[in-house]
């Protein structure tokens, strides 16, 4: 496993020498520096790193929400100009609309994309059922727990069957049990659908548990310091986290954190 894994020939998403610099009161700040990353179609990619390493910025650039100041990003060979087609996003906060029912919140995705709501009603109900929210379709977000709300926001992102799912620390605000639960559900969803997922997290075990490949980022400036494959069988039970093989991967990330002075070994 060398530092930059073997080049990907069939990349779905290609990030080429991407950099992002923005002005501030104390002079220009380099948020991202020379990021090179190829994402294979159907791959589950975890991006892990300490806060301030630019992982969220990278995600926003891939989502077309922010522009990069050097390099380029292509999706299916086409240069990225704004939010790409067939993308779903999940943020750390579920950002459900309080005045809409859970079903209407999920259908918001179709409304925003300009699709007729009624066409997606059945699919929305199916998704909610698959994520354990059957019976809560007509409840309001404030009647649900944090974990259930985040499940609903994942359903919203999946409604229009996106090819690419971008997740920015989606389980960061949840308690450990709920987080484990959602990790398993997300892994199952990914295995069933084969979507390309870019998953940002600062949790080492979450990154390894979910990913085909882990991208390790560092800060000052934000850059990629390591990329490695996670060669663990699927489906993965939660107990896999106690195995030696898992420990080796986790240790590799922990070692990087230690080098950054974030964790002390």
């Amino acid at each position: 496993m060398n530092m930059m894994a073997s080049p990907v020939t069939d990349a779905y998403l290609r990030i080429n020498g991407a950099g992002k610099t923005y002005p501030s009161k104390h002079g220009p700040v380099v948020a991202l520096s020379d990021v090179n990353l190829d994402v294979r179609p159907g791959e589950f990619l975890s991006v892990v790193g300490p806060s301030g390493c630019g992982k969220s910025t990278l995600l926003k650039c891939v989502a077309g929400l922010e522009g990069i100041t050097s390099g380029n990003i292509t999706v299916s060979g086409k240069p990225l100009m704004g939010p790409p087609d067939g993308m779903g996003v999940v943020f750390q906060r579920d950002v459900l609309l309080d005045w809409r029912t859970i079903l209407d919140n999920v259908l918001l995705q179709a409304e925003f994309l300009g699709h007729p709501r009624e066409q997606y009603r059945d699919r929305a109900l199916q998704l909610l059922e698959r994520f354990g929210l059957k019976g809560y379709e007509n409840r309001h977000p404030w009647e649900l727990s944090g974990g259930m709300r985040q499940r609903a926001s994942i359903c919203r992102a999946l409604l229009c069957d996106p090819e690419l799912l971008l997740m920015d620390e989606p389980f960061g605000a949840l308690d450990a049990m709920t987080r484990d639960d959602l990790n398993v559900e997300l892994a199952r969803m990914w295995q069933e659908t084969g979507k390309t997922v870019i998953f940002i997290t600062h949790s080492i075990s979450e990154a390894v548990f979910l990913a085909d490949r882990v991208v390790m980022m560092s800060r000052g400036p934000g850059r990629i310091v390591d990329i490695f494959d996670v060669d663990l069988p699927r489906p993965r039970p939660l107990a896999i986290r106690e195995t030696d093989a898992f420990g080796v991967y986790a240790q590799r990330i922990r070692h990087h954190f230690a080098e950054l002075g974030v964790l002390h070994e």
Partner: protein
Amino acid sequence: MKNSLAAKLMRDNRSLDIVLVLLGTTILWELAVRIFHAPAIILPPPSAIWAAFMHSPWVFIRNMLYTLMTTGIAFAISVVLGVIMAVGIVQSKFLERTLYTLLIAINSVPKVALAPLFVIWLGTGASSQLAVAVMLAIFPIVINTVLGLRSVDPDMLNLAKATRASKFDIIYKIRVPNALPSLFSGMKVGISFALVGAIVGEFVAGGRGLGFLVLTAQGQFDTTRVFVSLVLLGIMGTILFYAVDVAERIALPWHSSQRQPNA
């Protein structure tokens, strides 16, 4: 056990509290005036106030309805105009830098002091009264609505952008409903201010209304009639405030201040 029951009663019966406190105050007031022989020109007893009202109830009710109408129309104008202005301010950098700046500047002037100006501009009568009431009521509505329209979670806007939501969708499906709780708190202040404005308008440009009654009764040193008008104003103000409150509960069942704790 007894304590918790008392606490429960107090929580559940806020309106009962209000009635009991008012009733108690009225009785004390009546007793105090009788015991200390306070002259009616200083402080008339509640019984005399009631008698003065019953002597010519329709005069008071007619004038009360007039004030109510001024308040209601001014409030309606303030809400419609205020919301339009707020949407404009949030949507346009130009309006934000001009109109909003101007509004904030004017808001720091004690606006009641501007009331005589309207008499010069519009003369005495209904239009001056309306103008004064709108001038007072519109500020809290505009300012609250602007804050509400702005206070959208940035990630909600990111989500909308990422799914290519139209500008229209962002305003009508996110910003406006998100601003409704703020609009309603602006309206609660606004309805009270509209009533204040209507009274001030009647003071300076009167002819009719409870404010005008207060002024004429004061001129005749008829303190009892002043009090009749004040009591009616108090009742009116309370009813108007709760009307907005009830409207809020009906319109925004999801709003946090009315949320029932999860069982």
